[in-house]
């Protein structure tokens, strides 16, 4: 069941993504309404992170397009924020908590320029929001997993965006951090911002999210949690893989077929 909405803040149209010609996402069509806290769920290797990355333009699309606020990503980049997976960086990098959070302001500061007072204040404010202001001078190598995640979230918050994409913000964090993060997400949604989160823990889905996107190489369902998050659809998402789909994908990789026949 895929529910499309009027005036979506995010519209994904006929999106196919392939790695080495093997499609890992097939023809995704979805839309998300303003102010939603949307969870992307699905088994390992379902393409959840890939979906976010391709929306953010970090992975090339084989077909389709993405529109945010009815525009191309590059037109609205200042209003879009991305929180990568915590493990995607080396936390032994020589930087303090404050340094990392300030990075969220780099595009606002602009090339060649140094951070202004407004930028440092925005960074301090974001640190306070995630409850890490006491750790601002701490080396990032000395942070716990939960603290690292908060730092990443604070960095995204400094962008003051209208839509946030977060890749597994709840993975491997302590209970206090999980609670702090979800409170921030709720606050963002109350302020009319939209949050889209890759999520692993099915137990918390119905309390955390008001919109759910179920993914397993193809889009299984997308819609309000109370209508979509049913045992039937869950079974379809997590149950038997579509072996036919995977096999065709393998064939495409083997023969290096293009994903769309452009003749």
């Amino acid at each position, binding site marked *: 069941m895929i529910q499309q909405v009027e005036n979506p803040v995010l519209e994904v149209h006929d999106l196919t993504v392939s790695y080495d010609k093997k499609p890992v996402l097939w023809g995704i069509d979805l839309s998300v309404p303003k102010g939603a806290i949307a969870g992307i769920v699905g088994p390992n290797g379902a393409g959840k992170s890939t979906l976010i990355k391709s929306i953010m333009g970090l992975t090339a699309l084989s077909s389709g397009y993405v529109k945010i606020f009815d525009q191309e990503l*590059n037109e609205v980049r200042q209003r879009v924020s991305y929180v990568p997976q915590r493990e995607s960086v080396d936390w032994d990098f020589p*930087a303090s908590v404050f340094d990392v959070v300030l*990075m969220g302001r780099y595009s606002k500061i602009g090339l060649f320029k140094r951070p202004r007072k407004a930028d440092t204040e925005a960074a301090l404010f974001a640190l306070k929001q995630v409850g890490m202001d006491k750790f601002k001078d701490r080396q990032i190598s000395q942070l716990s997993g939960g603290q690292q995640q908060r730092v990443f979230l604070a960095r995204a918050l400094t962008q003051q965006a209208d839509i946030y994409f977060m890749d597994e913000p709840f993975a491997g964090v302590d209970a206090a951090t999980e609670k702090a993060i979800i409170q921030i997400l709720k606050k963002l949604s109350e302020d009319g911002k939209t949050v889209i989160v890759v999520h692993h823990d099915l137990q918390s889905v119905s309390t955390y999210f008001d919109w759910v996107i179920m993914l397993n190489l193809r889009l299984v369902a997308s819609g309000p949690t109370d209508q979509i998050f049913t045992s039937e659809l869950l079974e379809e998402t997590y149950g038997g893989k579509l072996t036919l789909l995977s096999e065709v994908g393998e064939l495409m990789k083997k023969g290096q077929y293009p994903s769309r026949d452009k003749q």
Partner: protein
Amino acid sequence: MNLETFIEFFSLQNPNVRYVVLGSVLLSISSAIVGCFTFLKKKALLGDVVSHAVLPGICISFMVSGTKDPFILIIGAFLSGWLSIIVLDYIVANSKIKEDTATGLSLSVFFGIGILLLTVIQHSGNAAQTGLDSFLFGKAAALVGKDLLAFSIIATVILIVVFFFYKEFKLVCFDQEYAKSIGLPVKKIELLLTSITVLAVVTGIQAVGVVLMAAMLITPAAAGKFWTNRLSIMLLLASVFGAFSGIAGAYISYAAPSMPTGPWIVMILSFIAILSFFFAPEKGILIKLFKQRKIRNQLLEENLLKSFYKIGEMNEDFTASRSNEELIEIRRFSSAQFKAGLSRLSSQGFIKKENSTWSLTQEGFQKGMRVVKLHRLWELYLTKYLRIAPDHVHEDADTIEHVITPEIEERLEKLLEYPEADPHSSNIPYQ
């Protein structure tokens, strides 16, 4: 080595000395700064690729121009060094070949072509070619005014670029995807970083040669990282290490003329790196050993006090004197450790010596009691909350008893509701 040579050298009166010193310092600083970024980007081998790949460029520019003008050779070197990185990235992006293999491929193919061209030039009978092979081994001691001019220009360019793109380089090295997501022109920034890396290599190679060039890039960065957790300070330290090695290398080859400058620069850099490895605060090996020793001592002392307490518990008398034999009966200590531990405890005021026996002071009694309490609390916690069998909890508690902080102690007490006895029905003592 005498004072006269020292003064002669550092007065920089001799123009030749001036060229060598300034040249070495400039190129060491340039490579140190650029090296910090390649090091943090985990592309330590990039310098090695570029330094080998500049050779064909040098040979071709010589063949085309027929001169050894440093500017012309540098242009050729820059282009072929740059091309090698483009080829490397292209292979990684467009084939199944992994980065390490592609690195080796790019390095050896370019270097092979370079050696081939060099051999052709050497057999061509062109008299101007003598000295071209100094690119292979460096010629820091023979730098001339024109080289120095070229070095200064390149070093200035590198410093200016790093100054203006500092925050962009930092972000691209730390988190490339995020940099892309906020709309930074990551490809262009990387290209710029590659370009100044090639520039630094092209300069450095003339002093230290192809093989040692990678060390000029990476060693100062690696040494600097030991001392700080701030990128700006790391850059500063790396440049200081580079500059110092440059001067020292030049001095050594001046004071002992048979000594080569370039290899000595690298030797001194390596020496600094080794010193950092051992002596740096926090990350150095020595401080780690020192901390481990401190912990071993703490374990020993607390275990001794625990033995005192246990004997006291058995005899229902905590103040009586105990002999060495009694203590060792409770727990086996190695005899050297045993003696050292007792004398430390006595000097810390936790035990008193009477003839050849020992007795607990009030403070020692309390400390011993706390360790026993923590041991038994932890045993109870393990059996209750982790459902571990009572006969399996002792070993674990023997370690954890030394780790628990007063805050955790308090939480443990509350959680277990101030229990009276551990899983083996031993009494849990409270103060």
